[in-house]
């Protein structure tokens, strides 16, 4: 899943946002009704994004947003356990009565829905609604940016271009609906859904935790526009959603705790205020002027010293209001290999970069994280092995190595060399203050150590992934962060690098090394021996680094803070976000 591009937008919007914030704060009063179990009150979220990247469950792929919508609005067949630490990575039944019943060969999975499930308008949730929800993933021209596991895993034939013969629910002509009906079937009582898969997937019950496996009522589906008004199956429904302004969730009267074992739904009302300037957002929480507020964007590096000690531990007075933990993400810079088709140049970028300064800018090792050696985090256990061949890496950059690589590039790939040293490579980043400073470090260190010119393309953070996903708009380098969708690198290596995958920012299809990679990765997906599979993922991680398809950043850490009236926050490891659904607001 994607790491949110958080941070400050440019100042023009900062001022408009400041005006908006000032006018809003005076109008917002925390409701003080509170019952004995801690429910009641208004929970306020602050973000400087202009809107959710996507509220449509099928298009949501940002870990934090999945956690948020999964906690409040969209239910799935199974879900992650709401618990701190490793227990949080266990899968529990959500809308289904159990965590799924696989066939012996793990190619067929069955889930039975609970009784009494309802949408926000009171209509019962049936197997057909889930089936319809899953079908939307196939309409790749309208339902963009979401996870595509349904397409890659379900047993639906592919046409000669490798695309699924089923094109989603919106197309009629040339659309093989029968193929989909064959792969996903509902029982006669409309309660049990059966998925037929094209290969053995032993952890398919983790796949269905994704919101793209949540129910969508067919008669309410407005295609592209569903992003603004998704129908709730969870404890809250949308009262108001206005991008650049705010979102208000109120209780969904048709949701019942009796048929939902995992959601707590303490607050009466949830408000998300968009477009709050980063300094304002931090100051609201730091000064506790709105004690029911929580920041959705992490903390400005400049404010870290107020809350945390230099070694990264929380100061005593903040111990109940902040956390600093390793999240599941690896940050990296995806190299658009179709444009930078020159291995020595890609390596030169890696060696020339002043990593130490970039880490220092992110708050140092105590807050930024540890240098990454690939796209798989050591936490992944089975799938991780330290990457070799990067011994010449020096934190502050290795000019000799970079210069040698550039000299090599000059003869082996003169075209890319001319571009890199002449007009320069285009680097996509979110338009945030921190990224602007990072740009200075990148430009300076690459110019000095390798003679490479960089041009930065600053993109509004909420629009960032939508822009770089578009091959026609993506530059030569794109900042990104990725976390495994569940504890198997099958959600990392193939997802990031296979051409048909969900997040192919490296665009490696034309690279000479791709054919072998494709063969090995696809073979390993159906590997049934988990230990061997893990070893192969580690080997493929090495392969990716040998070809430098990404410039690895950090195994990252994340910081969160919230107001004094907020209780019950813990870090939900698999989603890399606070467990939003367990938050209480004190009266």
């Amino acid at each position, binding site marked *: 899943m994607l790491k949110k591009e958080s941070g400050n937008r440019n100042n023009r919007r900062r001022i408009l946002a400041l005006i908006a914030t000032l006018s809003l704060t005076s109008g917002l009063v925390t409701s003080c009704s509170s019952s004995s179990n801690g429910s009641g009150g208004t929970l306020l979220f602050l973000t400087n994004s202009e809107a959710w990247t996507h509220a449509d469950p099928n298009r949501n792929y940002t870990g934090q947003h999945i956690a948020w919508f999964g906690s409040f609005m969209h239910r799935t067949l199974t879900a992650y356990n709401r618990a701190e630490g490793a227990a949080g990575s266990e899968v529990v039944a959500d809308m289904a009565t159990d965590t799924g019943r696989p066939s012996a060969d793990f190619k067929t999975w069955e889930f039975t829905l609970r009784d009494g499930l309802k949408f926000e308008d009171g209509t019962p949730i049936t197997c057909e609604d889930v089936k319809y929800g899953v079908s939307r993933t196939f309409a790749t021209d309208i339902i963009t940016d979401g996870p595509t596991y349904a397409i890659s895993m379900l047993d639906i034939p592919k046409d000669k271009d490798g695309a699924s013969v089923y094109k989603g629910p919106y197309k009629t002509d040339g659309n093989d609906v029968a193929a989909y009906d064959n792969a996903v079937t509902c029982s006669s009582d409309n309660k049990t859904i059966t998925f037929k898969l094209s290969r053995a997937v032993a952890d398919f019950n983790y796949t269905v935790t994704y919101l793209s496996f949540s129910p969508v009522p067919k008669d309410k589906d407005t295609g592209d526009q569903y992003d603004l008004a998704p129908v709730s199956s969870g404890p809250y429904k949308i009262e108001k959603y206005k991008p650049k302004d705010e979102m208000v969730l109120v209780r969904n009267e048709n949701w019942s705790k009796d048929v939902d074992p995992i959601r707590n739904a303490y607050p009466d009302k949830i408000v998300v205020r968009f477009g709050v300037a980063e300094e304002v957002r931090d100051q609201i929480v730091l000064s506790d002027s709105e004690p029911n507020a929580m920041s959705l964007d992490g903390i400005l590096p*400049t404010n870290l010293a107020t809350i945390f000690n230099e070694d990264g531990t929380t100061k005593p007075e903040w111990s109940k209001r902040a956390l600093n933990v390793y999240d599941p993400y690896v940050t990296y810079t995806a190299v658009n290999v179709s444009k930078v088709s020159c291995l020595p140049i890609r390596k030169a970028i890696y060696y020339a970069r002043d990593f130490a300064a970039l880490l220092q800018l992110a708050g140092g090792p105590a807050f930024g994280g540890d240098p990454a050696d690939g796209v798989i985090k050591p936490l992944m256990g089975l799938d991780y092995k330290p990457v070799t061949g990067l011994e010449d890496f020096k934190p502050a950059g290795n000019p000799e190595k970079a210069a040698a690589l550039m000299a090599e590039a000059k003869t082996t790939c003169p075209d890319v060399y001319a571009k890199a040293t002449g007009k320069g490579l285009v680097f996509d980043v979110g338009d945030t*203050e921190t990224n602007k400073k990072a740009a*200075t470090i990148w430009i*300076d260190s690459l110019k000095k150590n390798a003679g490479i010119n960089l041009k930065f393309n600053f993109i509004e953070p909420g629009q960032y992934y939508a822009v770089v996903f578009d091959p026609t708009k993506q530059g030569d380098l794109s900042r990104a962060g990725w976390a495994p969708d569940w504890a198997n690198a099958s959600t990392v290596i193939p997802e990031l690098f296979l051409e048909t995958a969900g997040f192919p920012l490296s665009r490696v299809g034309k690279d000479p090394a791709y054919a072998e990679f494709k063969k090995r990765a696809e073979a390993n997906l159906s590997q049934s021996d988990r230990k061997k599979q893990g070893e192969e993922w580690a080997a493929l991680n090495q392969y990716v680094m040998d070809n430098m398809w990404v410039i690895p950043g950090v195994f990252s850490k994340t910081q969160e803070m919230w107001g004094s009236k907020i209780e019950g926050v813990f870090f939900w490891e698999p989603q890399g976000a606070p467990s939003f659904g367990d938050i209480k607001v004190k009266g």
Partner: protein
Amino acid sequence: MIEEDSGVLSRSPRQLAWLRFRSHKAGVTTLVIATLLILATLFAPVFRTLFGLDPTTRHTDLLNSQGYPKGGFNGISWQHPLGLEPGIGQDLLARLLFGARISFTVALIVTVSTVAIGLVVGIIMGYFRGRVDSVIGRFIDFLLAFPSFFMIVALSLPMIQRLEQSGLLEGNAARVGYLVIILIFFGWPYLSRVIRSPVLSIRERDYVLAARALGASHTRIIFREILPNLWTVVIVYLSLSLPGYLTVEAVFSFLGLGVQPPDATWGLLISDSIKYVLTNPTYFFIPSTALIITVLTFNLLGDAVRDSLDPKSEAS
């Protein structure tokens, strides 16, 4: 000499103005400061070679693990008289000096261009009167009534892209180019308005009538008879609009319309320093103070120049 013989010391208007200026204390002080400022920015590359004041060198070793300059007070030392920029560790004085080159260039180009255009149009309006005057006058009304600030903000992205696509300018040059062009476009009418009225009265003076009666051409009348009477207005306007455009440039880079990193202008530095108002106040105060001192200097200097050239006008 002849003057001594006559017993009366005669002085040209220019000498008189210089005498008045010399006795203007604020004027002399600000002239010295302004000269130093201009020299410092002009010779910033020389300082780089002489004192190592380089805006691109990142002194990351002088920052602590979280990117703050070590030792408090923004890491001020003999090597770095104004300390370092937090997060990236570049020398702040060097950043200010090199940033000022961009700010001053923009302000200077815009001021000179608006004065040139405004002067020509103003003379044309006042001298020819009638239909020419009313057509240009209405166009000026249109420009002045335009919400130029919002126009500049709204047009920035598409216009900068156009400039880049046209291949004339690239990156930061395109951003600065856009700002210069649009500021000139909206800037010249003010001076035209100011110039028009004195021209209206000057063209009726006897010596202009005489010149016309002698058959002098329009060009000769405008350049030899009218223009010399306008220099006072122009010089005063020039000295007051320069600090004005310095501020405008800072405002637009503060809003994210000006140059982007790695280059810096004062507006950009101020915008960055705001985040540090509580955690590193020294850094917060330096760029803002620099801008205040500069604008104040040029404004006072402009006042002093006006007082000396035109003592009859009200002193501010």
